């Protein structure tokens, strides 16, 4: 199999303008078949414009996008039959039940053999199958949206901010569904501004800021290549521990929960700090040492992507 054939999605020099606004600025990337690809970025970064060009909702200003080997601007009719889309802010017909909604979308794809019960089970909506759409909570609506995106058993699934606006419990319920899809080997293109979501679900992450992809790789590789420190979190019984750590040359941060967070370069530094606190007669209620997460990488990279030009304007 050639590299081109391996790629479910190929984006080359994609640009999208809305009048004077440059929403997507000459971006290129590939998504391999069977992987979960997350496009990560702050609000207004160009995530939705990018995904909506790839899934045929919008047309590009310039550049080439190939989906399953087909040009998205020329083969929309063939492409839509092979993909599933959960658009941002998904909504459906208010007075139609969960089951009827799935039957409706299944008929639009002329999929007579869609197993509606299996889909309902997959997104855990069995108890709600006879409920009208308008009576569902936000999380349940999103789960139904994912099930709709699966009615035609798509080769590529596009999920545009599937958990935005959901409470933590509903978000985790949606994640469970997406983890199930990942296990099944579906190619999933995900946009999100939740780092935890991308870290948990994605095989590959591209971080986009101001319409440009600023870095791309697996979550582990991004963390590895963009950070060289550990994060030590302590909960001492005496606040003088902050002063002790500062005198050792570190930069401790005390938060409102009286937790002290310190960035250290090696595990030896952790030992040194613990010894100094112990020698000063301060006890610890809790202790945590971890690697930096994707959120810290994201904040570092998106901050670096912005600079102030001589005229005082924020530019990339």
């Amino acid at each position, binding site marked *: 199999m050639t590299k081109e054939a391996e790629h479910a999605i190929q984006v080359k020099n994609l640009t999208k303008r809305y009048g004077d606004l440059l929403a997507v600025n000459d971006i290129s990337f590939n998504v391999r078949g069977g992987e979960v690809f997350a496009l990560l970025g702050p609000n207004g970064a160009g995530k939705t414009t990018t995904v*909506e060009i790839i*899934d*045929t*909702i*919008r*047309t590009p200003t310039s550049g080439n996008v190939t989906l399953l080997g087909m040009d998205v601007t020329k083969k*929309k*009719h063939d492409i*839509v*039959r092979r*993909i599933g*889309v959960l*658009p*941002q*802010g*998904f*909504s*459906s*017909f*208010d*007075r*139609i039940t969960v089951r*009827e909604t799935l039957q*409706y*979308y299944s*008929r*639009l*794809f*002329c999929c007579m053999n869609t197993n509606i019960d299996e889909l309902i089970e997959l997104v855990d909506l069995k108890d709600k199958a006879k409920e*009208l759409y308008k009576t569902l909570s936000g999380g349940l609506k999103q789960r139904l949206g994912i099930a*709709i995106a699966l009615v035609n058993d798509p080769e590529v699934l596009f999920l545009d901010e599937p958990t935005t606006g959901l409470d933590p419990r509903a978000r985790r319920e949606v994640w469970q569904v997406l983890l199930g899809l990942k296990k099944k080997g579906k190619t999933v293109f995900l946009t999100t501004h939740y780092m935890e979501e991308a870290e948990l679900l994605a095989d590959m992450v591209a971080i986009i800021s101001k319409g440009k992809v600023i870095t791309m790789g697996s979550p582990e590789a991004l963390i590895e290549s963009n950070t060289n420190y550990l994060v030590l979190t302590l909960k001492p019984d005496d606040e003088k521990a902050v002063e002790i750590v500062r005198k050792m040359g570190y930069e401790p941060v005390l938060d409102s929960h009286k937790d002290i967070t310190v960035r250290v370069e090696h595990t030896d530094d952790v030992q040194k700090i613990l010894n100094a606190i112990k020698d000063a007669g301060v006890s610890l209620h809790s202790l945590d040492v971890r690697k930096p997460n994707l959120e810290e990488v994201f904040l570092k990279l998106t901050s670096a992507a912005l600079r102030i030009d001589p005229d005082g304007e924020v530019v990339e």
Partner: protein
Amino acid sequence: MNPHVVGANLVVRIKSFYREKSTMFFMIAFPIILILVFGALFMNQDNMSFDLCVQDLDQTDSSAHLVKTLEIDGKFKIIKLDATISATQYAKDNKLNLILAIPKGYGWSFLQRTALNDTDASINLTYLYDPSSISVSMKMQILNSVFAGINQKMSGKPPFIQSAETSILARKYRFIEFFIPGIIAMSVMTLSLFGTVNVNTELRQKGVIRKLSTTPITRADWILSNILYQFILAVLSTMAMLLVSYAVFNVSLQINAWLPVFIALDVFAFVGVGMILTRFAKEAESAAAAANAISFPMMFLSGSFFPLEMMPGFMQTVARMLPLYYVNEGLRASMVFNDHMAALRYSAIIGVFAAAVFILGIIATKWEEGQ
């Protein structure tokens, strides 16, 4: 065009409609209320009579005979006033716009003229009237014509000029029978126009259209299913209107194949107009306002409620440029006059318009998010 897709849309729209009881009620009830209100208002127009207060101050056989004469052709229902009360005060107290006073001496003058052949004998009947009342002049005109008849009879010579009335219609029609086809045309128009505009702008704002654009459904499938759905509603609504018209007003209207043809053309035309409006209106509110701006003038100018002849000449020209005029006239031609050639002519005109706006509606429908 995919029948599976059109069928799926149709099922969803009908279920949504069936589950929204208040919409269903008002959609069927509104035109029926219009028919009942206008029907009741104009029911007696073909056989109109007025109340008339008469104060007979003469109290003779001759004056009593005059009062009876006024009652004979049924134009007036006579209310007799006591001769002893003040007629002016009575009119003010009871808000009457006209009292006819027969003065004392009427009988004697009548006798002089008829028995004694005194051509100088005459009498003045008094109209006590409220000049601000709209209907009083009509009552006075009718009274004058009755008195002119009596005067002419007393002259002993037959009238030189007489009128002969011949209806150009095969039979006598009532106002309500002209009114019902207009109401059917008007309500099918509003149903199709507002149904299309409201649902499509709502679905677009909610993002449902965006989701649909990622499925194999085409713009033509979508519009065709809208038209079929609106046609079903229009047929239901028309059936309800006709049922009430037959039951309450005992109308005599022809129901033939032209009725579904004109309903279908009405739906086609105004779903197309609705699709075009939906494309250009950004919000649901502005789309509804645009639909109102189109439908209200059309309702009043195209002869749904009032005959075109009541309008000034230039407005009649405007009316003939409105598509609803041809639906009104087509329905009347088929249901009232049974004139198939006229119905064919009107259906051809509205058919061309419907085809044009349907094609424009497909072109205008914004399916993809575009540029």
